């Protein structure tokens, strides 16, 4: 059943911000354009992947002609139900598997090119490391793969563990004693170790507590603010809607929807305005104007309108009636609504 996201705002600017899904704590000036206008750094063309068991002709089609592009400086969301082809797409982009047909390029090269791998970071879903190592040793190992000097490795390891806020007391414990959330933090640290230009994140908030999940979202936004690109796979559509610039919804290996978040979810369709000090006369006038309203238990009145034009008129009406607007809530269609509709239209 579709659900609606509720955003509490204090003025019209904030309403627009909420409608666009922008994070409230980000400095607007530091944001790159959210319309995907940057240089294309990932391009897939008619990408198809069929998994075949050895010595058999039949196989399972995981991806059917996927064509997407990811542009520099954006956060790109890849969403879809289980088995839709998200992880297959990610693996193709990382060169872990080869396409059956179609083309994939990352930074204009093949994904298994070592030069490409030097510029990317990858956080897999449920990362796992050599469990006898501690977090310093894990990051030291990955630092060695980038041929960093011992000093550089030590500096970057400390820096990354600070960044992911892994408790100092836990850093020297073997990884096998870590919780899922701690493992996820180390996973993010190794993904960011080489200061990547392109970051692949597969279910980054898995296993994190609400504070950790929020910090992860903020970190992703900050990575974008530094001009880096993020490709994010997640089931948590509210997170995707909150942080992503563009989203591709795939189902059964096919691209169902592709575009910016506002393009996919559309503008808010329903608003509630809470006003205090509304007289009976004003309410009668509101009824004559066709506004729907409810008297709340605290004495305030909740007005309901169904378009942004009606919202402007209502706010003017409340102000002219010498009443006081105390809250405005915008109910928009969410990515989850779009997602469920897309997937259902696919016959699932």
């Amino acid at each position: 059943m579709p659900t609606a996201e509720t955003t509490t705002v204090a003025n019209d600017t904030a309403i627009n911000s909420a409608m666009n899904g922008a994070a409230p704590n980000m400095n607007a000036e530091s944001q790159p354009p959210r319309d995907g206008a940057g240089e294309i750094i990932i391009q897939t063309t008619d990408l198809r992947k069929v998994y075949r068991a050895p010595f058999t002709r039949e196989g399972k089609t995981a991806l059917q002609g996927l064509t997407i592009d990811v542009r520099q400086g954006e956060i790109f969301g890849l969403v879809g139900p289980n088995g839709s082809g998200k992880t297959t797409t990610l693996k193709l982009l990382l060169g872990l598997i080869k396409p059956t047909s179609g083309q994939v390029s990352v930074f204009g090269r093949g994904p298994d090119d070592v030069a490409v791998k030097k510029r990317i970071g990858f956080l897999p879903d449920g990362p796992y490391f050599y469990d006898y190592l501690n977090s310093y040793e894990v990051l030291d190992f990955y630092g060695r793969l980038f041929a960093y000097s011992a000093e550089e490795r030590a500096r970057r390891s400390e820096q990354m563990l600070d960044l992911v806020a892994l408790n100092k007391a836990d850093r020297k414990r073997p990884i096998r004693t870590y919780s899922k959330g701690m493992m996820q933090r180390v996973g993010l640290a190794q993904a960011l170790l080489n200061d990547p230009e392109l970051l692949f994140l597969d279910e980054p908030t898995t296993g994190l507590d609400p504070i950790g999940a929020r910090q992860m979202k903020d970190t992703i936004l900050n990575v974008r603010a530094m001009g880096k690109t993020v490709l994010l796979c997640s089931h948590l559509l509210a997170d995707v809607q909150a942080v992503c610039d563009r989203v591709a919804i795939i189902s059964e290996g096919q691209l169902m929807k592709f575009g910016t978040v506002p393009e996919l979810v559309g503008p808010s369709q329903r608003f509630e305005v809470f006003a205090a000090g509304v007289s009976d006369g004003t309410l009668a006038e509101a009824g004559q104007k066709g506004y729907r309203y409810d008297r709340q238990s605290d004495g305030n009145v909740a007005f309901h309108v169904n378009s942004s034009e009606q919202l402007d008129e209502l706010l003017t009406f409340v102000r002219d009636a010498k009443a006081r607007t105390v809250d405005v809530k915008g109910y928009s269609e969410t990515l989850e609504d779009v997602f469920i509709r897309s997937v259902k239209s696919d016959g699932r």
Partner: protein
Amino acid sequence: MSASSPAMNQMAAAPRPADERIEIPASWRIGQAIISLVIVAMAVYYYTIGWKSPSGETEANTRTVFDATGFLVLLGLTWLTTPTAGVIALTTFQEALRRRWMTALLAFGLVIVALSSFFTWMQPGEEQKFLRDFGLGFIIILTILMAIFLGVALVPPEIERRTIFTILSKPVTRQEFLIGKFLGLCWTLFVNLALMGLMFLISYAIFKIRIEKGLGAAMSSAEGHPGLIFDISNITRALMLQMGQLAVLSALALMLSLVVSSITAIVFCFVIYFGGQASSYWEHLSGAEKDEHGDHVEHVKGPIQGLVKAAYFVLPRLDRFDVRERLVNDMPVAFNYMWKAFGSGLTYVAVLLAIAYLIFSDREF
């Protein structure tokens, strides 16, 4: 995760390296050049005087193409080992050492080898020969178990635990990963073999000095009883040959683990090990030998002969690596004999690693 931490700011400020590839340091290249010179010097020595057996020994006085390919394989491995492969090898070594069963097996091996002289009562009058046979045999069995069980667990757990995802998404080629894993296992086995071998040599020397009633008597080579130096030299060479056998089994276990399940790979490894140990019998049965008149001797005929011949050519000649019989009979293990075993063994390793790479390069995770 502190979203706007100083760490994040420092990360943003860090300059990007201009180069696109991981540069191999000059010191690494110099190391590779020095190792290559040593290999070339060994080849020169072998092809001038090293291939000839010591006086009274004629068993290995021939040169085959495998002698040369052995040197080429060593050179190839030297130059294919990049710093990245070295990092993978080092981590493989560290991981192996921290396995509890490995530590337990090594401790057990060290204790048994140290106490091996206590078992000499089983062969009165031939104590020294028994000790050489028992000690070396025990080390061989233990290290072979290590090679097979560690070898089949080199790559599959990386895939199952998905650690390979984060490794192969770093600047690591599949070739480097595979060579690193192989070399890491070889290094692990070398360290275990060296520790147990050293313990055995000490134990043997103490026993010999005790039984010969003094160091002077133990050192002197009386008629029919070579001195301690000869024994130690021979045992050391036997241990070096065992390392060759371990390298072959490691490559075999690694390759098989990429094709079949771990259990099946272990079974195949043991079958091939015992088959390889019996390769002189395959040679004998296949008729690939001549009688005193120079005629080929046929022991089996028809399709069976074809099968036996196939077994002889496909199986590694592992019996060449096991020189316990020579040790028991006080026969020297000469350089030419050793290199013959290494040459064919290294060729086998190269073929196995090439097959492993072909499988692994197309492997999907």
